[in-house]
């Protein structure tokens, strides 16, 4: 056990899995000598060579498409998309190919592929280096989608993803790389895909969230505790599949639910979480199901006042929590 940065937990998971299994390899833009533009693959090329830490041409559809072929033929590729925003040219390979390969071949072929993509805002990345893209994929059967919010989960979920026999999209929040650190086992361990985590026990209101917003919500919850409001906080961790039982249990705890994500609200993950609750736990509710997300604008602008306007923060979340508690 040692305290590690979120980013180092990610690198650790890749290194250990590559040591364990020669089938695991990384491909992407600048993952080699550059160690990734965020330094997530730092040092790996020295240890594993340029074949297993492969710099590719600037072509996301090929990165994913080549990985699909390699995965089907016995390898365990980790395809890095430099910024989640640039996953869009690869959407056809992800949705038509990776997600459907096992199904369409009636279990004859498989696609054990991990796609890692740094997402999220608040880093002056503007419209195309800040987006949350999970809502495009959580609708697609055949995929799994995870979003770790702690260093512990970052490592454990990445190891799970690499060992998973099916394609997993692993969204890592770039704002958390060097902001978040916590206790991480040195050895290997897994955090199961599809299990949410209770981050805080509480009795008055329930907040369901994930990613960087988990931390902001916990900060807000501490603030509210001082005001006598006790918040229960659930971190989804997996977006597809959603942990339905954990969601319903968290609802039952307090009867008042707020769903928080950085992504814009319409059609976001919060829509499905809300719909699950309205379908299966309606009579547990003491208040309308509230959602808090980014505004309905195409993406997060560059200029600081605009970016700040877009991004949620503990204050905005606390405000929504107070309103819910007062309902």
């Amino acid at each position, binding site marked *: 056990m040692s305290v590690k940065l979120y980013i180092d937990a990610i690198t650790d998971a890749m290194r250990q899995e590559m040591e364990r299994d020669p089938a695991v*390899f990384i491909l992407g833009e600048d993952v080699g000598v550059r160690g990734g533009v965020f330094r997530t693959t730092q040092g790996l090329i020295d240890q594993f060579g340029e*074949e*297993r830490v492969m710099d*590719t*041409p600037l*072509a996301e*559809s*090929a990165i*994913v*498409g*080549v*990985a*699909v*072929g*390699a*995965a*089907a*033929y*016995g*390898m365990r*590729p980790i395809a890095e998309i430099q910024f989640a925003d640039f996953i869009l*040219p690869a959407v*056809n*390979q992800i949705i*038509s*190919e990776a997600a*459907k*390969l*096992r*199904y*369409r*071949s*009636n*279990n*004859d*072929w*498989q696609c054990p592929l991990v796609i890692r993509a740094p997402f999220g805002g608040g880093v002056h990345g503007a419209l195309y280096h800040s987006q949350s893209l999970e809502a495009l994929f959580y609708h697609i*059967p*055949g995929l*799994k989608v995870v979003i770790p919010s702690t260093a512990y989960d970052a490592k454990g979920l990445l190891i799970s993803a690499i060992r*998973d*026999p*099916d394609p997993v999209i692993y969204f890592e929040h770039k704002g958390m790389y060097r902001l978040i650190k916590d206790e991480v086992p040195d050895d290997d361990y897994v955090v199961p895909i599809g299990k949410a985590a209770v981050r805080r026990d509480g009795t008055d209101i329930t907040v369901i969230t994930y990613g960087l917003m988990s931390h902001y919500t916990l900060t807000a919850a501490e603030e509210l505790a001082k005001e006598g409001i006790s918040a229960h906080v659930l971190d989804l961790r997996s977006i597809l599949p959603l942990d339905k039982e954990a969601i319903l249990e968290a609802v039952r705890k307090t009867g008042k639910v707020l769903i928080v994500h950085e992504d814009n609200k319409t059609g976001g993950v919060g829509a499905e979480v809300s719909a699950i609750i309205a379908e299966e736990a309606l009579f547990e509710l003491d208040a309308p199901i509230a959602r808090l997300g980014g505004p309905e604008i195409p993406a997060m602008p560059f200029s600081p006042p605009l970016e700040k306007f877009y991004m949620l923060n503990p204050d905005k979340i606390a405000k929504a929590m107070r309103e819910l508690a007062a309902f």
Partner: protein
Amino acid sequence: MAFEIGETAVKRHRHIGLTDQDVMNIYENMLLARVLDERMWLLNRAGKLPFVVSGQGQEGAQAAAAYALDKQRDVILPYYRDLAMVLAFGETPLDILLANFGRANDLSSGGRQMPGHFSARRHRIFSQSSPVTTQLPHAAGIALAARMRGEDLVTYVSFGEGSSNQGDFHEACNFAGVHKLPVIFFCENNHYAISVPLHKQIGSKYVADRAAGYGFPGIVVDGNDVLSVYAHMKDAVERALRGEGPTLIEALTYRLHPHSSDDDDRSYRSKEEVEAARARDALVTFRRYMIDEGVLTEQEEKDLRNRLTQDVDRAIEEAERSPLPAPESALNHVYADGK
């Protein structure tokens, strides 16, 4: 190519290392594909098959290409017209028909995919989707995986000339070119993408002109010239196995039928054009070559055709008798754990 049909004194196929038996094998492959394909159209017109997509007119190129590959060593990523290719790699007429009839024991997909979406892991045939050209990066990926695993093989991936205009063509060719992967990109240029004629599809004269942009050879070959296709494929296979990287082969062919059973080709091409192509069809010209060269007699050819027809007819009966999938089986195999 140095050879043209009819030019030889010595049998031309011997020059390129093929025995009489070899060319017989190629011809049988072509003919089986043709007979099966014809039968499927009849079944479609009789209302028994909802959909047929046809390889007729392209069998010569396919069978020649297949003969240059090693069925135990190589992996193929065929496209929907590659009936002769997948038959060569071990699929039987019954396999094809079970897929066409959407039966439970369809090898490629358990009745999930439309006809023509070939797949069979046991035969080293990779699974195909419908959005065109996505298979090209997969071919590079399989070649890369094989190299990393220390296996010597060639991946063969085919596609129409229309499909060569998708971004995935470019990205896959370049990836394979950079890494000198053992991939053969085999373009079956039948001069139409559904109704769109070649000159509205590609800015250059040939698809093969694009290979230079990825640093590997691009070859144009008459797709009805079976021996020429074989010879170029053989070179490409050897080149790939020597570690010298990919080759793009463009076989000039023609699609004798409408795009699919849903299409009507009269709006976009003339009867005369199709008739002219029928005369160049490898099923006609290669047959003539074999008879002229004394490899095959008219009678032998007739017997062969009868035998294959009977085989196909038996397979049709069996496929029709075969059970449909259980409705709830639609839920299986979304993920490895069955869920």
